[in-house]
């Protein structure tokens, strides 16, 4: 088995090397740090989901969004106990059990590649990029079930504008966190990790593309991709990468995990499309969790008026 060490998250990164080699200085710094932690606890430090089943920190002020649906939301219980997060097991109920002790602090997201200002964002910095909004989106899984979730985040374009992609950047590649030590069930998933995904730059800039840090008024539950993930409501769920650690801007179309496994079943675009079936099952219908009979699946999951323009002239049967 491959034991990949994540290059982005080592203790050397968390604590500057110059500090942790000098023990005395380190201890002094620690004192200051803990004083700071007591004096000014930030929302992220309070979250510490390592000792909680769910990250229960509430977000205070959330702007409403014109992109929200008024459909009936699924329950928090459903959304936290019916998950595809293969790093934590392949049964829908596995991630709720196996992600309980997933460590999401400290966390940072590296932005690199064809950008004028490559940098690393800490969770605190991410939370300050743009005002947080609540976005109630439909979420359609490639397995033909769907949910309605009140996500919390801000348009991914806000982050893109901060790092200033160069003209060379045509695509955005995403990488999930992976640590076999924390995710031993990943061995049996049958897919390669870390999980990778990608978007065309214009897709990433679409106002619907959400950099998501919470749901149901709180920080994200571990099994739902804590602490930060993408939400792309017009695409099948697997495109919306979880527990994001790296964003890379590049000229080439990025590889994506499910496409690598079965290119005839999962395309790069993977837009929700009731007229293009998965080779093994129909995509024309879906089961909304909480309902018994299936309902019709909508083109682009009902977001045609906001996203269809990006694909005009494209053969969506070929670019599935």
């Amino acid at each position: 088995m491959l034991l990949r060490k994540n290059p982005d998250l080592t203790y050397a990164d968390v604590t500057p090397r110059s500090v942790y080699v000098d023990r005395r200085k380190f201890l002094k710094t620690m004192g200051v740090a803990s004083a700071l932690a007591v004096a000014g606890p930030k929302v992220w430090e309070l979250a510490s989901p390592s000792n909680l089943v769910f990250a229960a920190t509430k977000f205070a002020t959330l702007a409403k969004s014109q992109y929200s649906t008024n459909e009936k939301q699924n329950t928090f219980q459903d959304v936290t106990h019916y998950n595809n997060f293969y790093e934590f097991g392949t049964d829908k109920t596995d991630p709720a059990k196996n992600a309980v002790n997933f460590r999401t602090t400290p966390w940072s997201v590296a932005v690199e590649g064809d950008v004028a200002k490559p940098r690393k964002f800490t969770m605190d910095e991410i939370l300050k990029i743009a005002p947080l909004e609540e976005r109630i989106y439909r979420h359609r899984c490639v397995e033909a079930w769907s949910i309605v979730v009140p996500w919390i985040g801000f348009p991914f374009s806000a982050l893109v504008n901060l790092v200033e992609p160069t003209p060379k950047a045509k695509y955005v590649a995403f990488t999930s966190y992976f640590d076999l030590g924390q995710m031993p069930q990943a061995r049996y998933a049958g897919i390669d990790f870390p999980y990778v995904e990608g978007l065309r730059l214009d897709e990433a800039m679409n106002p619907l593309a959400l950099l998501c840090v919470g749901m149901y008024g709180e920080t994200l539950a571990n099994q739902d991709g804590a602490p930060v993930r993408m939400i792309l409501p017009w695409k099948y769920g697997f495109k919306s990468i979880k527990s994001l650690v790296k964003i890379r801007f590049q000229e080439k179309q990025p590889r994506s995990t499910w496409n690598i496994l079965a290119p005839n079943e999962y395309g790069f675009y993977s837009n929700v499309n009731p007229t293009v079936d998965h080779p093994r099952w129909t995509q024309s219908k879906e089961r909304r969790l909480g309902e018994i009979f299936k309902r019709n699946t909508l083109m682009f999951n009902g977001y045609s008026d906001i996203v269809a323009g990006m694909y005009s002239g494209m053969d969506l049967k070929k670019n599935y």
Partner: protein
Amino acid sequence: MRAILTSKWTKAGVFMLSLVPFALLVWNSVGNKLGANPVESLQHATGDWALRFLVFTLCITPFRKMFHLPELIRFRRMLGLFAFFYVCLHFFTYLGPDQNFSLSAMLKDVVKRPFITLGFAAFVLMIPLALTSTAGMIRRLGGKRWQQLHRLIYVCAILAVVHYYWLVKSDIRKPLVYGVLVALLLLWRILNRRKTTASAKATAAATT
């Protein structure tokens, strides 16, 4: 051991035991304890139990021979019929919630989706086996013809395993377990057949 196996209480016990999964599914359905996607959870559970009972049924003959327990034959029909029972439940959880009880929609789906095609074929092939499981039907068909017909269970088991294998996205452990079990049980039959035909030839050669 013989006495236990031939007791009518044992048979009644196995019958009740075989109904436990069904009772649990009913209980959990009524109590809304089937999770976020109860339909899917029923589909998976009934499919799993159908496959398990198929495997139990296929175990009877090898176990009879290996452990010299011919009395085990008393349970074969019952286990086979329970396999059919769970397959029927499995089928209706698909015909109902997935296909809105529309036969035409279902048939379209059956033709279009290879994994559904196989599952449906296994279900259809089990119908004549269930119908001819009575003593009267065995007599009417004649032992040899009946046996030939009932070898279809091997085909059903293989179809069911592939049906499961084609359903899963990437984690193939569970269908693989069923696949290995069915393969072993069928392999035993092939080897056993070779052995018996070889020994039959040997006795035939010795007597002439």
